[in-house]
C-alpha cells in the first residue's frame, strides 16, 4: 500500500483512461489506448518496474469490486509495457492470476510477447580526437574512431 500511496489517484483515474476502460471492446484496443494515455505514462514515470509488479500483485488479491479496480489494473499493466526492463520481470508477472479481470490475461500476453531487441552504440567525435561512448537501451559499449588517416 505504501507504493500506491506514492501515486496520486487523480493522475491514474483520468477521464480518458476511464473512457478507454468503459468503451474498449478488445484487449488490444484497450492496451493501445492506455499506453498512449497520461495515466500509464504517469505510473511508469513515478514507479520502478518491480514496484509496479508488486502493486499488480497487491491489486489482484481480491476480485474487482468496481470499474475503478479494473482501471487500476489495466493502467498498471499498460505502465509495465512502457518499461525497458520488463523482460527481467517476466516470471513474476506470469505468476500472477489475472483471470478475475476481464482482459487481464490477454493484456499480459501482449505486453510480454517477444520483441526484437535493439542494442545501441553512440559514438561522438570530439576535438581531442577521443570518443565518448554511451550505451543507451540495454548495453554500454566502448569504441573509438581513429583519425586522421587511421591504421591499417
Amino acid at each position: 500500500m505504501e507504493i500506491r500511496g506514492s501515486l496520486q489517484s487523480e493522475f491514474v483515474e483520468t477521464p480518458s483512461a476511464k473512457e478507454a476502460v468503459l468503451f474498449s471492446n478488445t484487449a488490444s484496443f484497450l492496451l493501445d489506448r492506455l499506453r498512449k494515455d497520461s495515466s500509464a505514462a504517469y505510473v511508469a514515470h513515478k514507479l520502478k518496474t518491480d514496484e509496479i509488479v508488486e502493486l499488480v500483485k497487491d491489486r489482484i488479491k481480491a476480485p474487482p469490486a468496481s470499474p475503478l479496480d479494473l482501471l487500476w489494473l489495466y493502467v498498471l499493466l499498460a505502465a509495465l509495457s512502457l518499461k525497458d526492463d520488463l523482460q527481467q520481470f517476466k516470471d513474476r508477472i506470469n505468476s500472477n492470476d489475472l483471470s478475475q479481470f476481464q482482459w487481464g490475461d490477454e493484456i499480459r500476453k501482449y505486453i510480454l510477447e517477444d520483441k526484437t531487441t535493439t542494442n545501441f552504440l553512440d559514438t561522438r567525435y570530439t576535438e581531442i580526437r577521443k570518443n565518448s561512448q554511451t550505451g543507451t537501451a540495454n548495453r554500454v559499449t566502448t569504441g573509438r574512431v581513429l583519425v586522421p588517416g587511421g591504421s591499417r
Partner: protein
Amino acid sequence: MILQFAVVAQSVAIDRFTNRLSIFNVCERIEAPQFPIFVAELVFVAVVRREPNEPAVYDTILNIRLGQTVIGQANLHIDFEGSLNNRQVANFQGLPIVTAGELQFGFDLPNGVQVNATVPVVQVPAPPQARA
C-alpha cells in the same frame, strides 16, 4: 545466425509503443568537392536473426573502413534477450572522412558470416563560384 539487412542512413527512430524501426534518409553515396570532410550524423543499422539453438549473446567488433584503412572501431554487443531477432544501431555523431573511397561498416557473426554495408565516397567537381 544470418543477416536480415544492413544499411547506412542519416538517422533512425524506434516507436516506443510498437517497437517498429524507421530509417530516415538512407545514405547511398557521399559526395564532396574536396577532402577531408566531416559527416555530422550517420547511423549504421543491422538486423540479425538467429536459430533457437544459436547463442543469444555475442560480442564482436564493428570496423569502419575507408578503402583498406580502418578509420574506426567499436565493441559491439549483440544480445538477443531471448528473442530470435536483434537490431544493432550504431550512431556516429561526427565521422571524419579524409579521402574518397569505399566507406564500409562491418562486423562478423559467430558462424563466420560477414555483415557489411558499403557507401561509396566520391569526389565531385566543385560548384561554380558566384560572381559579385
